[in-house]
């Protein structure tokens, strides 16, 4: 019997209500990713401590703590592997500043706001997904 392909597990840290809820709903309806959501860095920390994710999508315009969180993720401070996919979203006018700030962090993808939901989900389809453990044979 074939098993459905595993979906990437993604933590979305996004304060904008309509954007956040739309991304999560579309990904769920189309079975493109399994999202958890948080509205702030503070709300995300317990989730990051408790669960391993394949990718993090974070609005880095929500404050300095967002940049600190990305750095901690790369250092392996949470349950996820240190080299998971990190997508930082930012307003166009902040792009140059954010690009400079993220230079020291390896492999952080920047997505400029406003972006299309399809564009984000398409990027997440390229995220390597941890393979589930094989089912036990009885």
């Amino acid at each position, binding site marked *: 019997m074939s098993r459905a392909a595993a979906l990437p597990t993604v933590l979305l840290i996004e304060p904008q209500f*309509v954007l956040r809820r*739309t991304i999560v709903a579309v990904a769920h309806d189309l079975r493109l990713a399994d999202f958890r959501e948080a509205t702030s860095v503070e709300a995300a920390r317990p989730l990051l401590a408790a669960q391993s994710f394949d990718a993090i999508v974070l609005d880095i315009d929500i404050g300095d703590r967002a940049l600190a969180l990305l750095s901690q993720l790369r250092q392996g401070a949470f349950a996820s592997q240190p080299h998971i996919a990190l997508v930082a979203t930012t307003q166009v006018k902040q792009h140059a500043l954010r690009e400079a700030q993220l230079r020291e962090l390896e492999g952080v993808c920047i997505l400029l706001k406003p972006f299309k*939901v399809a564009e984000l989900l398409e990027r997440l389809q390229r995220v390597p997904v941890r393979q589930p453990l094989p089912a036990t044979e009885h």
Partner: protein
Amino acid sequence: MQAAPTPINETERLRALKALSLLDTPPEERFDRVVRFAAEQFDMPIALVSLIDRDRQWFKARFGLDARQTGRDISFCGHAILHDELFIVEDAQQDARFADNPLVTGDPHVRFYAGASLSAAGGERIGTLCLIDRVPRTLGAVEQAVLEALRTLVNEAIHSESDPA
């Protein structure tokens, strides 16, 4: 032109619409932010939350349109409330129901329309979240899912007194 047909549950539908106390009320951010987001997300010049009253459609939220209401008989949304699924007209000029509609032949020159019906608590379809363009369009699978997700947010706003944001 085919005027928007009257749903078989029109009496109950109008009663449910009135009970929501939304008609002729001031703009509210919980609806406005959804039409702004929809217009941006779909690159649409017009996005609306339209409520279908007895003889008119009245816009609770509007982006890209100055009018506060139009006649129900010429409304696309009057057709959309007959369906649970998305109601999409890819090119109104090529559609016999709408080709000579004054909203197509004149301002705002509708060519593309996509409407997601909105529901009262009892399931009565009381209006739509709709997208309008002045050129022919199609909606892909992800875009249709986005419109469905936004429909859910507007339905939640309709049924909630408080703003969750």
